[in-house]
């Protein structure tokens, strides 16, 4: 089966590209990036700020079940062209990672289909690889935590 979301990360480069085709008109796809309530739903986060304009800023805070903020991300818009393009910076709060630059291109593929191309540029190739590995590590950590739980129950 063809994968819907594809990652293109060439060896040694300091960028990567994520592409995804949606069974949605491009207007609805863009709306999912424009409307704070909708962003909050699919990103599972709290949208603190979403100023959809050039030089506008954005901030998302993600909390655990107890309400403690565990993850925060913010940045600035450089371009905000409805149904076409968003250029923005992205920076994780309380993390040793340098800011990254993101180019999001929205493309109509007919009445009911659209495509998103997201190019992310990092400060270095090493940082890109680190960011790529992050979910891999989180997956491992979750597996280890789960293992620990199981082992604890055996004690």
């Amino acid at each position: 089966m063809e994968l819907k979301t594809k990652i293109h990360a060439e060896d040694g480069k300091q960028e990567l590209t994520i592409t995804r085709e949606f069974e949605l008109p491009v207007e609805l796809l863009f709306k999912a990036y424009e409307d704070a309530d909708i962003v909050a739903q699919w990103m599972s986060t709290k949208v603190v700020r979403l100023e959809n304009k050039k030089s506008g800023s954005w901030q998302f805070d993600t909390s655990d079940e107890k309400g403690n903020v565990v993850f925060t991300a913010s940045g600035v818009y450089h371009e905000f062209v409805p149904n076409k393009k968003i250029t923005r910076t992205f920076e994780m709060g309380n993390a040793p990672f340098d800011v990254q630059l993101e180019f999001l291109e929205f493309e109509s593929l007919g009445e009911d289909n659209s495509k998103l191309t997201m190019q992310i540029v990092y400060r270095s190739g090493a940082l890109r690889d680190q960011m790529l590995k992050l979910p891999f590590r989180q997956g491992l950590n979750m597996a280890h935590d789960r293992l620990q739980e199981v082992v604890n129950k055996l004690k």
Partner: protein
Amino acid sequence: MLLASQAMTAGSIASNFNTARPTVSKHLAILTECELLEQQQNGREIYYHLNPNKMKEIADFIEPFRKLWDDRFNKLEDIMKAYKPKK
């Protein structure tokens, strides 16, 4: 892609590309060094074949990142399919 079905010599691999033979050899040497390809001596010829374990390792390394975005985008798609504009 060529090597997915069979082991091949550098010469037969090069004949499939519009690239000079030394360039192809250089690429093969790099891929071999990264353990993506394995060499097998057969008489005077060296055959190259894919190392499936290494290929899988590389795919697995990116997979959790891809899955993270795939899950987000699936959610986005579901939400927007059900979306009714407020009038």
